């Protein structure tokens, strides 16, 4: 039985000045679903996430979240509606400690299961380093802190922009191993990844972007290696 999608993107175009980064991109995600967006560098993956999160406004098309139009809403408003972004490169606040970074994630006061205690339970290493300035953490720990920070906003939809970037494979596996725990309360996830294998393992549905267009979409376990390569590289 088809559920109403949690998020529905209908044919959006996105521009950086005169440069068009997305061409008529459509995507939908149901509650409790993990969707992966893959593609080469410059394909438009981050642009897509930024458009959903409200950091960029699409020039055409619609974005509907829980049935309401969000395209055009500023980022702080989008967060309050329940979409949180873990930005590319982590981007923790360097002037704040680990704990302060987490606390500020929760400053919008959205009700929900995620609390400081809960985040420390998920990522114990953060509890050990809670009073250190954020830049003192290793890459993997920073990524955990960035995810924890986004979770503190109690979102219904979590956007993860290249969380494996710059991290050792073992660290990446460690983080991805916690996805089930993260989703246990009914969260949906859109993960943008360059690590295709990881993306396919973690998600149920995959979209492949190529030069701003959806080149392929389908169930993660049904798409063949060849079709993914073709879509990824545009061969």
């Amino acid at each position, binding site marked *: 039985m088809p559920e109403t999608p949690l998020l529905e993107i209908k044919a959006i175009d996105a521009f950086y000045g005169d440069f068009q980064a997305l061409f008529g991109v459509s995507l939908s995600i149901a509650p409790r679903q993990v969707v992966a967006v893959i593609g080469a560098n410059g394909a438009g993956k981050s642009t897509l996430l930024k458009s959903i*999160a*409200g*950091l960029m406004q699409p020039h055409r098309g619609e974005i509907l979240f829980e049935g309401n139009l969000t395209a055009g809403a*500023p*980022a*702080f408003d989008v*967060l*309050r509606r329940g979409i*949180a*972004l873990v*930005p590319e490169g982590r*981007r923790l*606040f*360097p*002037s*704040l400690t680990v704990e*302060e970074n987490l*606390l*500020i*994630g929760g*400053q*919008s006061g959205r009700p929900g299961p995620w609390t400081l205690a809960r985040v420390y339970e998920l990522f114990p290493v953060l509890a050990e380093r809670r009073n250190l300035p954020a830049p003192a953490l290793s890459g993997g720990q920073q990524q955990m802190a960035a995810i924890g*920070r986004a979770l503190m*906003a109690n979102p219904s939809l979590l956007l993860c922009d290249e969380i494996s970037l710059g991290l050792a494979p073992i660290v990446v596996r460690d983080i991805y191993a916690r996805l089930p725990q993260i989703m246990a309360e009914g969260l949906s996830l859109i993960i943008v990844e360059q690590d295709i294998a990881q993306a396919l393992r973690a998600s149920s549905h995959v979209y492949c972007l190529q030069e701003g267009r959806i080149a392929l979409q389908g169930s993660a376990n049904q798409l063949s290696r060849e079709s993914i390569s073709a879509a990824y590289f545009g061969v």
Partner: protein
Amino acid sequence: MQWLNVILQGVLIGGLYAMFAAGLSLIFGVMRLVNIAHGDLIVLAAYISLMVTQSVGIDPINSLLIVVPAMALLGYALQRGLLNLTLGDDLLPPLLVTFGLSIIIQNGLLEFFTADSRRLQAGLIEVETFQLAQGLFIGALPLIQFAVAILVIAGLQVLFYRTALGRAFRATSDDQSVAQLMGLDTRHVFAMAMALSLAVIAIAGVFLAIRTNFDPAIGPARLIFGFEAVIIGGLGNMWGTLAGGVILGVSQAIGAQIDPGWQLLAGHIVFLAILAVRPQGLFPRISG
């Protein structure tokens, strides 16, 4: 002993200068904005206090209960309505708009109040003095004002490092877009910072008005004292700013003792010397 008195007076007025500086350095820290109208806003606060004391009949210290919230509200409106529009990569708009604001405030006050010199009467505490030691005197008013300066700076530190608002300030200052992603409306955060700055300005303005004669034209000099205190002390460090204010105050006091015409010059020369020899200031924490 006389020199000790001189230095003591210099230290105490340094507290007032530190208050001038605190508001300036606070908004620079949060939004990289330097408000050229800062000094004129201090004078505006003095005039508002004058109006309040004259119409309501309370003394200047109690007028703070009205002046501080009034100025804070003005700061919020000013940032939200005007200054937020100037923020961006270009440094000209905020500079020129606040310069225009400075001219507007000065001339507005001139039109409304004339160029006559005024003073706020605070009553007996103006003349009370304590004797600390043989030949060493300290006025009640300068002492209170110094204590207030320390309280203000301590208060700002607590606010910045122990409260949610302070976290919001620091986060927004670090990374505006990610702060937005956290649900912070940066327009509101900036406006709160300006409101806070003007609240501090209000306190400084009232104490200034009790201490000396004021008229619409003395704003720029207060801006300069605040600015010098910030640079001497080092950017990004509130206690450094207090030290900067004290150094400035003491320099001026020593200069005045040598020759009254040298008071201001002595302060400027010390400032320029520190700029020449240690441009990052004495206790810097961030870079300009």
